[in-house]
């Protein structure tokens, strides 16, 4: 059987084929062709859409170009969510490629944060990493790291360097065997149907008695309706990295393999969709 390490690669090298189309009301000098790109699931939109911007620059006047923002079927896409999450959340059951509409006007101030430069993303990314590590190791690991290690994490993500990223990230993923896992599993549950941005609570990877918690355990506690309902019919789809793991999957293991998500927020995120 394949090794867990192969999963890390699979997760990291996950790509979503995307077509970027300019919003119809944007003012162009000539008709703009759609732009096609493979987006890394673990990255952030604003980090990977320079090419998109350049593409549309060719057909637009500089003064017509405000801050670029992206929208999918009426939903403005939050740049501070990882790309994979956005896709799973909003578009997972649609045909590929993912059709994203590109806007340069009318920035939706109430929905989106401004992202003026990569530093903003980096700051957001690092704060997510830190938040996760506080949950995992009381923040000890991240605080003991040097500035250059932080930089390497970020550069690894920015340049899509798996090894560079993991050379540092593995330190963040260590835990003692005796404890059976981290202090708390950093996770966020995102729902398509909820107004709340996400569910985030403290949850240990093992029970007080030392048994491993599974994905099912977590959901049962955080979001009971996602697991069972009265008529036994499955109403929700639990998606992580574009797949639906079995509820019996131990949480710690799931986190170990999906840990590239530390990038995005606090790792495991569950877009739950009503079926």
């Amino acid at each position, binding site marked *: 059987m394949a*090794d867990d390490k192969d*999963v890390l690669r699979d997760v990291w090298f996950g790509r979503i084929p995307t077509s970027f189309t300019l919003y119809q009301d944007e003012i162009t000098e000539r008709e703009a062709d759609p732009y096609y790109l493979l987006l890394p699931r673990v990255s952030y939109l604003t980090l990977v859409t320079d090419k998109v911007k350049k593409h549309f620059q060719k057909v637009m006047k500089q003064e017509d170009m405000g801050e670029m923002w992206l929208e999918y079927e009426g939903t403005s896409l939050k740049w501070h969510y990882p790309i994979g999450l956005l896709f799973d959340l909003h578009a997972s059951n649609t045909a590929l490629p993912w059709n994203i509409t590109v806007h340069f006007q009318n920035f939706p101030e109430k929905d989106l944060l401004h992202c003026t430069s990569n530093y903003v993303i980096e700051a957001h990314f690092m704060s997510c990493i830190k938040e996760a590590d506080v949950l995992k190791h009381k923040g000890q690991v991240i605080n003991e790291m040097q500035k250059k290690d932080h930089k390497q994490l970020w550069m690894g993500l920015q*340049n899509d360097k798996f*090894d560079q990223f993991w050379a540092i990230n593995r330190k963040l993923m260590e835990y003692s065997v005796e404890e059976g896992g981290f202090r708390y599993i950093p996770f966020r549950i995102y729902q398509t149907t909820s107004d709340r941005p996400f569910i985030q609570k403290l949850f240990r990877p093992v029970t007080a008695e030392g048994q491993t918690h599974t994905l099912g355990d977590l959901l049962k506690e955080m979001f009971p309706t996602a697991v069972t309902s009265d008529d036994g019919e499955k109403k929700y789809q639990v998606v992580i*990295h574009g797949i639906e793991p079995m509820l019996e999957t131990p949480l710690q293991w799931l986190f170990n393999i999906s840990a590239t998500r530390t990038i995005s927020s606090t790792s495991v995120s569950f877009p739950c969709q009503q079926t």
Partner: protein
Amino acid sequence: MSSSLLWAVDVYGRVYTLSTAGQYWELCKDAHLEFKRLTSVQQCCWGIAGDHQVYLYMHCSDVPIRCQEETYENQRWNPVDRFCEKLLPSDRWQWSDVTGLKHQTLDSFRLPSEHWEWEADWYVDESIDGEPTEKGGWTYAIDFPATYTKDKKWNSCVRRRRWIRYRRYKSGDTWAKIPSQDDGPLPDPFNDISVGGWEITDEPRGRLSLWAVSLQGKVWCREGIHHHNPEGCVWTEVMTPGEVVQISCGPSDLVWAVLWEGQLLVREGISRENPKGSSWVVVDSPSTEVGASHVAVGINVVWAVTKDRKVWFRRGVNSHNPCGTGWIGMVGEMVMVNVGLNDQVWGISCEDRAVYIRQGVTSSELSGKTWKAIVVARDDNRSHSESANSLVSAGCFFSGEVRVQSQSSVMNDTESSSETERSQTAQSTSPTHADAMKRRIPKVTSDSFISELVSDKERKPGRDGRDDQEEGAPLEQDQKSVPQETSIELLSQSSGQLGARESQWSNVDLEEAQTPLTAAASDTTETSSLSSVATYNLEEQYGVDEHPLWAWVCGGGCAVDSHTHLNWFNTSTGVSSSVQSMSLSITPAQTAAWRKRIFEQLSERSKRELENFRHYEQVIEQSVWVKKGIMQWWRDWKPNKWIDVQFALEQFSGSDSNRDGILFIYYTFNDEKKYLHAFINEITILVPVLNDTKHAFAVYTPERTKQRWPIRLAAATEQEMHDWLALLNLSCCDSRGIHGPPSKQAIWSTTCKGDIYVCEPAPNLEAVPYPLPCDQMFWRQIGGHLRLVESNGLGIVWGIGYDHTAWVCTGGYGGGFSQGLASSTDNIHTQTDVKSVYIHENQRWNPVTGYSSRGLPTDRYMWSNVSGLQECTKASTKPPSPQWTWVSDWCIDYNISGGTDMEGWQYAADFPATYHGYKKMKDFVRRRRWARKCKITTTGPWLEVPPIALWDLTILPCSSQSSVEEVSLWGISNKGDVLCRIGVTRQSPAGTSWLHIGTDQPFKSISIGGGYQMWAIARDGSTFYRGSVSAENPAGDCWYHIPSPPRQKLKQVSVGRTSVYAVDENGNLWYRQGLTPSYPQGSSWEHISNNVRKVSVGPLDQVWIIADKVQGSHSLSCGTVCHRVGVQPMEPKGHSWDYGIGGGWEHITIRGNSQEAPRIVMPVPAESALEKSGCVAEEGGGDGGRTASNSSVLGGKEEELNGNAVSC
């Protein structure tokens, strides 16, 4: 780690053991005996039973205790009868011992006790001095006594032959009564007993001191206990100044006793020569008012208990001052204390009669920190055979019981006296008492999740009684009747299912056992989960609240230290079960479902999201990544020295994640900036050269290998070095596309530093006539520390550590420094190894003071290494690298060739010379060797195969497609026993147990080749072929003695498909000629080469060696991997050597590689590429190191022996 046992006796005299790996007190077999006292060491336990007799419990081993008896048959020639038993009146007995002084006929030999049995009948030894004799085994001489030879000459007037018979100790794993003494003063009944003293001397092997105290207060010592005589021979009295009540003997030279009046006695003068000691010294009781009642000693500690139950620690005890200096009162009140291995302390508390372990006892803090109670349940009825491994049977009756028991446990009458209950338990018909503790039992099966949710809320108190044969009827009278009926129905259902399907480990799911009960549900899914309940006993028969009362504890054989992880302190079973569930959850069968699903889904996802969109542009196309650092570099030119350099690794990667890189070393030379570079894809090996001064590593390319001069770099810290090594390793592996575990074909090698390397053989590695040059082989490091590794084509890989521990490869990769990415997540375990560091103490004789440490000005250092060139004092000598830590103190080493005197000295006329173990007239100098053990703890894909320590091993070579079921694996124990491993298969490479093969002398090397040809070499150099080994008869039937090459003693043998090669003690490589299927022993040895250390012959008869003194263009290399070129079916000896990586290589095995090279038909066999040479290098160790094979030696350069990475 192999487990060891803590022994204890409860207040009813029943003996229990607790394994360091276990979580239960197990009732000792032979439970009919009641014991008062126990004293244990690792191999055995002695006890005084209720009948005041002494009993011995020897732990069984795969290697039996066997003793050789021998006697000589002597004959004299006369002209009438020729050789006959008629001897001259002045001659020796016709049957005698070796000296001829003692008359001993064959039938005069008696077994020493009823615990022994004869192995076979008497037979004649047909060898002399490692050489086979004629049939009949006679050896000839001119007269008695004289030198005997195997050849009959004209003047041979007498002859003799040796008869051998073996007896075997048969009473293993049971209490064997020590026969009471027939002669001499018969000791009155014993009252106390204590064993120890194994560290005083290892001559004879396994020697123990056993001290005993009789009811009258006399002290006795048991004589002659050692490995081959576990029972000892006789009790001798040791006079004491008073009546003794209790005695304690430590592992080394401490013996303390308690007098009736309350003072303590200390034995003085215990030494190698006089293990009983010479005199007693009285030490006062710790407290002036209250006398001592109990004492316990270790290596450097003494603990005592006074009559008021107070515990005391003796300060300042060591072997120079066995009396110590003063008492320190400790917290806690104990009935007794016991000191075990590593000076760990055990006690039984007055208050609750529980067994306590002293926490935090380390060599620097011998008194420890706190007492901690051992809280584990007892398991009275479970016998060893029924434990976890007898799955099906255990599962069968277990599954039936569970619910009923859990019902009964709720109801059970907790107030019934424990005594009655125990007797009930003993009968094993009545259900045992269960605690009312809430417990959780691991659940692992995937389909259990939902039902777990149902049952989770209302989890009932635990159940127990896996051992009860019946359904618990006797205790069910006062139970709720409703669930009982249901459960019985379920029971029949489930046992019916069990019959149909096998109960499997992977289905273990104890949690669900409760589901039918608690939810009172009887649907089939749940019942079937019930049927899978089995096999792992997590129940307690005695709850923690009803805890046992202990009377005696002994940790003398219990190998724990302050770091050992023990599962003994669980106040609820929950904790213990969690350990189980964690470990279970990593077994492939358990994880299969969800894990496989994720794997499948991910690849589906990739397919779905990428398949049709590969033409889309990537966000990040290609990039360069540079990592820089400051290092030191051992510069190439003279004078060689470490200089500061800038170090950079540039990596480029394309969108397809292919990558490559270059290593740059920027240095300044004469104020001019220069650089040196190496392409990552040209690097063949990275070798850490950690020593106590530099955190260095060496980088080799094919060119550097030819030069025998690597790029040597040193990082500032060990961590930095490891980071760089991990990164470089990863880059190298990536650039060559090597990922994951080593293949089954892989070539394994080890260095003298214990580092393990593996090479994926290229298909053209054995190509004829153009094989892949050896120096281009890429080696990557695998975690762990081993002396040798052996493998075969089925991927079965075993290794042996420097401490002779056997390890089996788990199939993982990584470990050591390559954590994280380059390492598999499962299958990596902690590995430890221990080796000794030696220094020499040198002295010179002068007329005034005799031998003293004042030498001549020209002399070597008075404390030095073996060569005398380097000063090595006790204080200044450090462990080999920061990875090693000292685990013992300096002690004199008596086991040196040449022998020593009683103080370990060896004498010689002058330094340096050959040393001998006794003083002669002209000996002006002497030396002795001190040894200190150090230990490394690392990680790697290795699991220990306890308990037998190995010297050598061999695995049957097979091709990777081979359908062989059980693979032959043979080992030689570090004591020289020949062992055959049973049950080694692809699925369970560790096998199950050893089968001991009787031999007349200890062995040292063994090899099994194609067609089950097996060859072995004994320690005396005699060579044997084992007959009739086959798949059906894996142990073979008898040994055929093969004559050695003239005047040479062989030391190692390797057997390939048909070729047999051997190496002798002088480094010559020999090829066995004339082997045919009908005569597999062959006819003679042919010399192939010299300067050979080790040989490995592969399944295709390929020949690889470790050679010494291989000359490179810059330097000379010891311990070099060499490949015999030109080996073909019709030319099995090949024609020349090709040289690979070197500089401290110790071992190689080619025996996994069964890939035939693609056959290329070449018009002309080209020999020009490789020099034809019969010897590896330097002929006869002579002039300048130039040989025919070293045509590329640079004339003007001076050779440097230490030019290589790992010097040895």
